[in-house]
């Protein structure tokens, strides 16, 4: 199994380190040809506007959309924005997941937070029922899910922070910033 990490901008090195801990072969993706031979892809945290512009400039939009039709993708924070269909403003999106996302929904950096989440799917996939500690940084929320997309996790006030649609995953938080590998392990169960 070989998993790519979109390395246009952001914390792609943290995702690569996480995958290496799980003994998975990795590759950095900066150009369309780097998608060849990959079984799945992670779109990291970063600035979604920067990632979108670079994806357009280097003709990655169509190849990424096609890749997502057949392969598993995990989008974290900026990655969740980029993989979504609608964010209520004009910037390049892959439109792969039927989710509506709002950028910077919790406020600015001083409002960034850590908290524990209950994610039943992680218990099924990993056998551990410890709460999942999630790190949110200038985080987006998933305002709504459509089609066959389902909610994976919400914060106590009900706002959605993780969703799944078939082999596609989106999170508002950063599974790559803690030592807990369970979210990546769950993602790998979706890779063919």
């Amino acid at each position: 199994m070989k998993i790519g990490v979109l390395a246009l901008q952001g914390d792609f090195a943290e995702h690569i380190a996480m995958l290496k801990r799980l003994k998975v072969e990795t590759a950095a993706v900066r150009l369309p040809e780097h998608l060849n031979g990959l079984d799945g892809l992670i779109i990291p945290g970063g600035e979604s506007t920067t990632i979108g512009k670079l994806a357009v400039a280097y003709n990655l939009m169509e190849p990424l959309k096609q890749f997502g039709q057949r392969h598993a993708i995990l989008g974290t924070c900026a990655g969740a924005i980029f993989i979504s269909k609608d964010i209520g403003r004009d910037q390049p999106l892959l439109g792969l997941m039927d989710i509506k996302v709002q950028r910077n929904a919790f406020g600015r950096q001083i409002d960034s937070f850590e908290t524990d989440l209950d994610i039943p799917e992680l218990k099924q996939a990993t056998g551990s029922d410890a709460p999942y500690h999630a790190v949110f940084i200038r985080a987006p929320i998933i305002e709504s899910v459509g089609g066959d997309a389902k909610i994976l996790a919400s914060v106590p006030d009900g706002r959605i922070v993780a969703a799944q649609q078939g082999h596609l995953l989106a999170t508002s938080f950063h599974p790559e910033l803690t030592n807990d590998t369970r979210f990546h392990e769950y993602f790998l169960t979706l890779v063919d």
Partner: protein
Amino acid sequence: MEVKTGTWIEKKGLAQMLKGGVIMDVVTPEHAKIAEDAGACAVMALERVPADIRAQGGVARMSDPELILKIMDAVSIPVMAKCRIGHFVEAQILEAIGVDYIDESEVLTPADEAHHILKHNFKVPFVCGCRNLGEALRRIGEGAAMIRTKGEAGTGDVVEAVRHARAVIGEIRRLATMAEEELMSYAKEIGAPYELVKETKELGRLPVVNFAAGGVATPADAALMMQLGMDGVFVGSGIFKSGDPARRAAAIVKAVTHYQDASILADVSKNLGEPMVGRNVSQMPEAERIAGRGW
């Protein structure tokens, strides 16, 4: 359910999200839009770019909060702002208006010639400049969640940025070869907290994100700093003091992503118009250099 804000993971984490990106100095909301449209991962809001601070002289202070707020309104990317070294009240004001990162910067006139701000006292994260590993680890010890090598701001001459990046990277490389029992004397020698020296050795890199700054003016300069091992690049005067800021800004963003691909670097370096005029640091009197500010 417990919710924690302003934690070390949060502070360090935002800098991790900026990696592989370009942070651009902007002096108006219009500049900020140009920077965002060019693909900047954050902007530094200030009244004068370093080249103008040099040219105009006088005391350089924190910018007008009204200007910073207008820039925060204009863009969706993170906004940083500078306070003077040791001026913790300017920092309190910047935190109160909600900037995403504070740069305790030698580019402004220092307010304290012995002490930096105790940055652990704040919820907002700080970035600080350094010329070597000891200075970087002292700043992290005070609570800086991001480091930038200082270079020589406002010159368009990359030589000092290279010197400082090579110093930090070289010292970390030396540290990697040291025996455990050598670390305490090394910590003493470079004036750095022992625990952070140990952590740096274990990680093989600084414990926080490290950007290059001070003199980057071209896509090639930016890629040079990335190939030397920096996590990203600040560009100050280099963009808005050049002939075609939007084009140059976009080119530097691409150069930081594709820093290992010489054919892409060649392509983005074409037809950028006039670079900033620049000043040769080696011919600059000691008194005009600002990288020495910081203790």
